[in-house]
């Protein structure tokens, strides 16, 4: 009895130490390396690189120019040079506006109309959380690219059309595809929380329907819209795979340029840029979390009645039908194009592309990507990620529901990976472990595969935590107290009562972690360079320009795996933790 008690007492601190050590090794140390490299040249600490970047119009556009010659602000008005950072922010802003324009009508339709499949569509709006960005890219290439479905369709009716890819517009549209559902989801949830009686009171006091909407509904929706907008801006600012695949270097954002510098072995500039971007995204994420924490989910005493979507044409219905057409074009067509492209060739219907995935295995040269290897790598890394991310995520969820000093700090540290891009983590792991690190007189090196699993685990465990923590804190406190009063120790209550009750949430978190790992592109592409540890997303990116057919076939494989994960999350989970 005594011994087990002591073991129980020690188990939590021991787990805490192990978790923090893993976090330090897989996340804080690599990110630290990037920070240090940003301010160290040839072993000497200096801000020279930072200053150089800040003064370079290529990076900071008109701000850098103004440091030398302030008059440029007047002279070049309004045609400012944006620079890399300016362009990144500019495209993120455009993407945010586009996502709002596309998402708000969706929120309206979801919140105020009734139609068959509404609930399914509503849960599908959470899909972007698990949808790999590279899948969006390949879907858009399959629709809007040179041999994309839309371009071919336009040509077949005699319109002159060429590729839409490689334009800012297509990047913005892809970001909107990705983020508009989030805005629709968060806003619809808030909309459904607006009590019908509030609007009715405003109407009874003499306000017209439109006036009541403006005075009563919109102010209550604004926080949700802002939350979604901030999230979209952060995602778009840090966007990598979509910009790389759809824009290339001519439309490079900071992330893409960092990747470009890494592939040119210019690690100094890469680290400096990555650090600057990281500081910016950390600040934005902090602002987002602060703002989100202030929101309080309300549920209406009586939600407004829904309008049946099917029925005689009214102004409202016409609007909703119009939006449905737009939504089908933007959201459904890329997915359908992906499926279509994967089973068509010059000769019509074919399974050639899928056969290629298997046959290429035997015929590929050593330096070429073998599709089947990519699939098995993805699955192996996914399994490895689960082994680390699930225990870690569950443990941190337990920690976050306990009251003790220093909890806030652990909470914040453990959620930090949300705000740091995969490119930064990948760069740090590459420099720190794959190239080797010296400690205790030995040189430690880690293979790309292990580093990839570490990077995936870092990206995945916060989702486990965000699924399990609400489930744990949702358990009635008196259930725990009953168990304790019956003689169970704290650790025993956790094992007997709490963990069994959150099994669905743990499974959802597991599916989430797997989906994140399978779809991870940013750090994988850096860590897999030159090696044989490439995954499906990396293979898709390699194939995208050259072999659209196989790329779409692999995209379909990825889509299927992601969809299965999504169904599990949707059935069992508490959601991503991002509103809705």
């Amino acid at each position, binding site marked *: 009895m005594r011994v087990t008690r002591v073991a129980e007492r020690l188990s939590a601190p021991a787990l805490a130490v192990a978790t923090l050590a893993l976090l330090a090794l897989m996340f804080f140390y690599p990110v630290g390396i990037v920070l240090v490299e940003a301010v160290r040249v040839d072993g000497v600490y200096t801000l020279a690189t930072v200053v150089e970047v800040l003064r370079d119009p290529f990076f900071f556009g008109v701000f850098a120019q103004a440091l030398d010659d302030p008059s440029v602000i007047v002279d070049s008005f309004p045609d400012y040079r944006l620079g890399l950072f300016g362009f990144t922010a500019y495209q993120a802003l455009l993407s945010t506006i586009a996502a709002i324009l596309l998402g708000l009508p969706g929120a309206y339709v979801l919140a105020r109309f009734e139609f068959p499949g509404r609930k399914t569509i509503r849960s599908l709006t959470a899909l972007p959380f698990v949808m790999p960005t590279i899948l969006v890219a390949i879907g858009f290439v399959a629709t809007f690219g040179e041999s994309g479905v839309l371009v071919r369709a336009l040509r077949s009716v005699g319109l002159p059309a060429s590729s839409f890819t490689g334009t800012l517009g297509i990047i913005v549209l892809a970001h909107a595809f990705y983020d508009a559902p989030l805005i629709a989801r968060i806003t619809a949830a808030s909309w459904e929380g607006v009590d019908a009686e509030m609007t009715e009171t405003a109407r009874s006091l003499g306000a017209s329907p439109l006036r009541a909407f403006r005075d009563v509904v919109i102010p209550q929706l604004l926080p949700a819209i802002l939350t979604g907008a901030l999230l979209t801006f952060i995602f778009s600012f840090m966007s990598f795979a979509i910009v790389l695949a759809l824009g290339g270097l001519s439309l490079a954002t900071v992330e893409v340029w960092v990747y470009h510098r890494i592939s040119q072995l210019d690690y100094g500039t890469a680290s400096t840029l990555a650090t600057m971007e990281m500081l910016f995204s950390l600040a934005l994420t902090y602002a987002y979390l602060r703002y989100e924490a202030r929101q309080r989910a309300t549920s209406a005493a009586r939600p407004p009645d829904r309008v049946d979507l099917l029925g005689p044409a009214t102004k409202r219905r016409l609007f909703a039908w119009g939006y449905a057409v737009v939504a089908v074009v933007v959201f459904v067509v890329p997915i359908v194009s992906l499926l279509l492209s994967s089973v068509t060739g010059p000769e019509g219907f074919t399974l050639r592309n899928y056969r290629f995935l298997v046959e290429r295995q035997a015929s590929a040269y050593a330096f070429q990507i073998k599709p089947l290897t990519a699939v098995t790598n993805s699955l192996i890394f996914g399994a490895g990620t689960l082994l680390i991310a699930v225990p870690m995520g569950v443990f941190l969820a337990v920690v976050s529901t306990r009251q003790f000093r220093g909890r806030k700090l652990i909470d914040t540290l453990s959620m930090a990976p949300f705000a740091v891009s995969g490119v930064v983590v990948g760069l740090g792991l590459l420099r720190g472990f794959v190239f080797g690190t010296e400690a205790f007189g030995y040189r430690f090196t880690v293979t790309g595969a292990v580093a990839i699993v570490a990077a995936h685990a870092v990206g995945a465990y916060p989702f486990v935590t965000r699924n399990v923590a609400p489930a744990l804190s949702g358990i009635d406190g008196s259930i725990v107290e009953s168990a*304790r009063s019956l*003689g169970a120790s704290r650790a025993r209550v956790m094992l007997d009562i709490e963990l069994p009750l959150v099994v669905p949430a743990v499974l959802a978190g597991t599916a989430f972690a797997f989906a994140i790992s399978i779809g991870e592109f940013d750090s994988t592409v850096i860590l897999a360079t030159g090696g044989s540890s490439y995954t499906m997303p990396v293979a898709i990116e390699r194939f995208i320009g050259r072999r659209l057919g196989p790329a779409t076939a692999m995209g379909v494989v990825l889509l299927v795996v992601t969809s299965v994960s999504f169904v599990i999350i949707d059935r069992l989970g508490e959601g991503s933790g991002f509103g809705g």
Partner: protein
Amino acid sequence: MADLELSGVRKAFADTVALDGVTFDIEEGEFFTLVGPSGCGKTTTLRTIAGLESPTEGTVRFGGEDVAGVPTEDRDVGIVFQNYALFPHMSVRENVAYGLNFAEPPDGQSVDERVTELLELVDLSGMGEREPDQLSGGQQQRVALARALAPAPDVLLLDEPMSALDARLRETLRRQVKRIQQDLAVTTVYVTHDQEEALAISDRLAVMHDGGVEQVGTPREVYEEPATEFVASFVGENNLFDAEVVGRDGGATAVAVDGTEFRIDDGLGDRSGGAGDRLTFCVRPEDLTVGADTNRFEVAVDTAEFLGETTRYYAEWGDRTVVFRTPDAHGGDGLTLGFDPADARVL
């Protein structure tokens, strides 16, 4: 020696003082109730006994031993919460057996025997394989009771266990709980906001108000001899009168309420003080009788509530409202009420 003692217990949270100077003793095998309005500190007191809250000051003793720092799982208590808190992923039988993981069943019984015995005790024989969500509220409450009793705790703690049930079921269960408590002779602390329930079920009760204990006594003592104005008006209905002492008349005291003179005699002699002092006394609604021959005053009936075996009347007396109860029908102005001097109680 008392089985359970609280002395000078104070509990301060970040911004409020929940308990201050809570002191009482509970005898072994006693059914002891904490009653008071919501926010009075009764649940905090129960949680302090359970070890779910630790007192800021003061001591809690089990069988004479200070239990400060002893965690809940090491105190021999069984708790039943208002929402039953059954483990939803375990069957009824597993729920009841859970505490036997940590304590031997009493009298050399096996776990199975013990669980079967307890399910019988709460009239749930044959329900062992059910899941909690297949049971009615009353059945769930009995499972929670069986679970709390299974390890044969020294103290049974019941936190408003009936308040989620409808009135009729509550009365049935009240009798059942009382019967089981008497059979097992387990020291029991019962928390309720319902003073009627407290009077009906308790051996003794503590009336709590604003984090303190107002009065401890048997139901009859508390009802008939309330110690404070709060107890007088919280337990049962009451008419409270502010009065000035006019003089003494043998054992009785002559007092004036807004110029009307009354004789009161609660058998406590000089507690009423000397002439010119102010005091408050109370008279129960059932002790105000129509057409009485002492302490008469004239009222006008304002509202009548027919309750079945009796009718409750609210009547105007000057600018006061008095409440009285009688089986007879009355109405209108000019009704004469009165009361026996011995039925008045000085607070």
